[in-house]
């Protein structure tokens, strides 16, 4: 893979982090600049594009009607899919989703699902028969590290931006009416990924930093500061103390981002 960096560069990055510094001058818990553009895809029911440094993620939301799951007959259905689009990195290849894109989709999915972000019961059209299905498609357009936080943020921004078609039921048929209603949301979770290198924790790792990190832990945090979903990744480990520390760090950063985002 052409995105691998040299051993020398790895050493340089590691030594900086061990001193509490970073290659781009940020502090260990600083995020890169980010910008959210909403509604770029007029044809989708919702969309948002997030630039986090040079990481670029576009999320489109489509709403269609479909059948509910048998065990939740009066709830809408959420489906999250992630594409590591091959133009985003020389290391991404076209083809069916691999384990990285599946993990990414499932982390984004759990952040939304476990925080009960969508008011699923309001998506029910006819219990057991017809509900709205919300398709969240995460489209990574440029990979410069921290795809998890960028994708999760962009997905929630797209949901906030999503409009639902109005409808009425006539003779058992769903008739789509003029006009839209916002998608009913109950929560706006923010996912923060904490990287670990030796005894240091850091936030918003860039692409090169990700290659020297031992491991990462991602936490979805809701408005109350509660934890809604967690995922450890990477081939290294955390001590129990580091996990508690990481959890606090994520909660603080979520508060900070929430203010910036006015979420």
């Amino acid at each position, binding site marked *: 893979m*052409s*995105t691998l960096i040299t051993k020398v560069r790895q050493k340089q990055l590691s030594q900086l982090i061990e001193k509490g510094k970073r290659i781009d001058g940020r502090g260990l818990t600083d995020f890169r600049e980010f910008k959210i553009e909403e509604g*770029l*895809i*007029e*044809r*989708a029911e919702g*969309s948002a594009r997030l630039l986090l440094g*040079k990481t*670029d993620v*576009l999320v*489109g*939301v*489509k709403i*269609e009607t479909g059948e509910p799951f048998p065990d939740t007959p009066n709830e809408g259905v959420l489906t999250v*899919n992630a*594409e590591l*689009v*091959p*133009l*985003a*990195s*020389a290391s991404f290849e*076209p083809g*069916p*989703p691999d384990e990285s894109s599946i993990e990414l989709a499932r982390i984004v999915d759990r952040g939304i699902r476990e925080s009960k972000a969508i008011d699923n019961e309001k998506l029910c059209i006819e219990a057991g028969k017809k509900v709205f299905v919300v*398709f969240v*498609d995460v*489209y990574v*357009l*440029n*990979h*410069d590290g921290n795809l998890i936080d960028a994708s999760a943020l962009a997905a929630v921004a797209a949901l906030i931006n999503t409009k639902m078609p109005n409808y009425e039921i006539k003779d058992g048929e769903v008739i789509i009416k003029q006009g839209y209603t916002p998608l009913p949301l109950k929560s706006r979770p923010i996912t923060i990924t904490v990287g670990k290198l030796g005894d240091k924790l850091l936030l918003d790792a860039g692409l090169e930093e990700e290659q020297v990190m031992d491991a990462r832990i991602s936490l979805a945090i809701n408005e109350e500061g509660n934890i809604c979903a967690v995922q450890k990744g990477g081939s290294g480990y955390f001590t129990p103390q580091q996990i508690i520390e990481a959890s606090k760090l994520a909660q603080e950063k979520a508060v900070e981002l929430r203010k910036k985002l006015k979420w």
Partner: protein
Amino acid sequence: MIDKQEKLIDKKGIRLDGRKADELRPLKLEVGVLPNADGSAYIEHGKNKILVGVFGPREMHPKHLSRPDRMVLRCRYHMAPFSVQERKSPAPSRREVELSKVIREALEPALFLEMYPRTGIDIFVEILQADGGTRCASITAAALALADSGIPMRDLVVACAAGKVDDTVVLDLYDAEDKLGVADVPVAYMPNLNAVTLLQMDGILTHAEFEKAVNMAIDGCKKIYALQKEALKTKYMHIKEETQEEVEE
């Protein structure tokens, strides 16, 4: 279902979106938009929004696809699931496979494939939003992305469709005209070589109408060609300015 009797062009010859018969939709072209790709471009053509990234010339993977006497060009035309009215499955459809092929063949005549034996170039076309004429807009943007990658080219390739709507041959059909019109004729063209590198048609046309449509499409291509060159110039000026700034610092 939409009533097919509805007129798409009014008595004054104005189309539903306000354009005249030979008028292009608004275009926006940007070059060098993707940091990781070797070359890239973004196009808005009407409501089409398309991103193209180019990687290479680089070693082929898998190796057995490489050729001892020339470079291999690969192209993937792919629609984002949210780019169309009804969500599209991410798996490639037969339409996407066909368009990938004809787009590749539209671009190949512009390249000196024999100059880079045993290597490959990958062109990734992502339709973020579709509004009729995506294959043409993809070619226009892909040619820019190739130029941005620095690979030598015989000429830019530029593409535009003409077609027949109601009883009139018109330029650059958008989605509704594409679906309700009589015929659609996408054309790709290299102006300096007077070479048509893509040509397709759906619908029914007399020979005279077909000839008129091809010529109108080529005229459209020539106009977009000017915008392509503009976009490349903007990129180079941008680079020049950046370099000067660095020198001044």
